[in-house]
Each structure stands twice: as C-alpha cells, then as structure tokens.
C-alpha cells in the first residue's frame, strides 16, 4: 500500500493533466486548431495553383531556366541589352546591361500571393508595363549587394 502523501500527489497530478487536456480540447481551442489546419491547406493549395499557372504561361526554356538557375531572365522590351533576373523565390530583381549588373529593384504586390505568382507578376509587369514597373520600384545600388544571380 502507498503512503497517503503519494496517493494525494498522484491525484493532484491526474487532476492537473485533466485540466490541461480540458483546456486544450475546449471548443475555442479546437476551433482555432481547425482554422489553422484550414489556412495551412489553403496555403498549400494556393502554392500548387500558382506553380501550375506559372508552368502553363512560361515556355519550356523559361521554366527550365527558372528551375535550374533559380531565376528567370526577362529581356527589356524598350532598352536594348538590358535583362532582368527575377528570383524563383521572392527577393530583389537584378538588372543587367551588357552583362554588368547596373541596378537592383525591389517591387512587391500589395496583396500576399504565392512565390510563383510573384515571379509571374514581375515578368508580366516588365514585359507589358515596364515604365510603370520602374516608376514604382525602389532602386538600390548594385555595389552594396552580393552578386548571387
């Protein structure tokens, strides 16, 4: 037979565990957990859809370049010898002229969108609305950034 103090300690511990479980499994907590799971599913589905759209709208060569090199090269429609390097994952767009990096641009959507949609956004803005893209972009000096693209 256990001494009464041990039994009391076990009883208190059991009550504490029950209270913690009750707190965790109470309705608001369960609702919050379900909400988190739902948001996570939406996020995964959003990424999948964005990737599928990018795959559909890029040529085979463009998609291969993005996958292998980690960036997409887009030619300027108005400035000869200028190319933009759009990173696969969100980040700055590097601008090259005749092989020399001349500028780093920061442009972002005002609404959150998956990374693949950000790539598409940069590409479409550069190809179809370059002047506006350059107007809104924050420009950084290329010398202050490590050359990674």
């Amino acid at each position: 037979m256990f001494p009464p103090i041990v039994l009391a300690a076990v009883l208190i511990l059991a009550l504490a565990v029950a209270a913690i479980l009750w707190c965790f499994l109470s309705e608001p907590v369960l609702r919050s957990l379900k909400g988190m799971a739902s948001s996570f599913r939406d996020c995964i589905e959003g990424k999948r859809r964005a990737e599928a759209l990018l795959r559909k709208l890029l040529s085979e060569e463009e998609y291969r370049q993005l996958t292998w090199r980690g960036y997409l090269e887009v030619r300027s429609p108005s400035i000869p010898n200028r190319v933009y390097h759009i990173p696969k994952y969100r980040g700055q767009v590097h601008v090259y002229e005749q092989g020399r990096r001349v500028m780093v641009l920061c442009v972002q959507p005002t609404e959150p969108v998956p990374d693949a949609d950000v790539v598409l956004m940069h590409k479409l803005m550069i190809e179809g609305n370059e002047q506006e893209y350059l107007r809104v972009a924050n420009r950084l000096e290329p010398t202050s950034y490590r050359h990674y693209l």
Partner: protein
Amino acid sequence: MGRLHVLSARGDMQVTWDEKKAAESDPEAIEAIREAKRIFAEERAKGGVAFKVAPGHTTERIDTFDKTAEHIVMVPKVTGGE
C-alpha cells in the same frame, strides 16, 4: 476558350468562357463573359493591372476586357519593396 486568372493568396481564381458559343447566343457562355467582365472591372478598380498573355506571344497590358484573349492575368497593385 478564354480564361481570366486573378492572382491571390489562394492561387489564381479562374473564370472561363467560350467565345464561339457566346457568338451562337449560348446563355451560359454569355453569362460567363459577363461575369469575367464584372470581375475584370472590380479588380481594375482595386488597382489591379491586366495582361493579355499567350505562351510564345508578346505580353500586352490591357485596360478593357478582351473576350478574344486566350489568357488574361490580373496582377494585384504593386508597390516598391524593401
């Protein structure tokens, strides 16, 4: 078939329409075009920019809905980042 893609956090929301059927007065096709036009105008009013895209063709910015487009992609308003 035409397709309107609206980029969002949940991936692109799509509306499709069949221009040939709409030309034959198919009510569903006409309704689909009307819905696509409505969404186009709504997104433009929020500052979104629309592009007519076809793989292998030049990207074109458009300010009015084009039911002959293969793909129209609506990009949310952009701003300078950090």
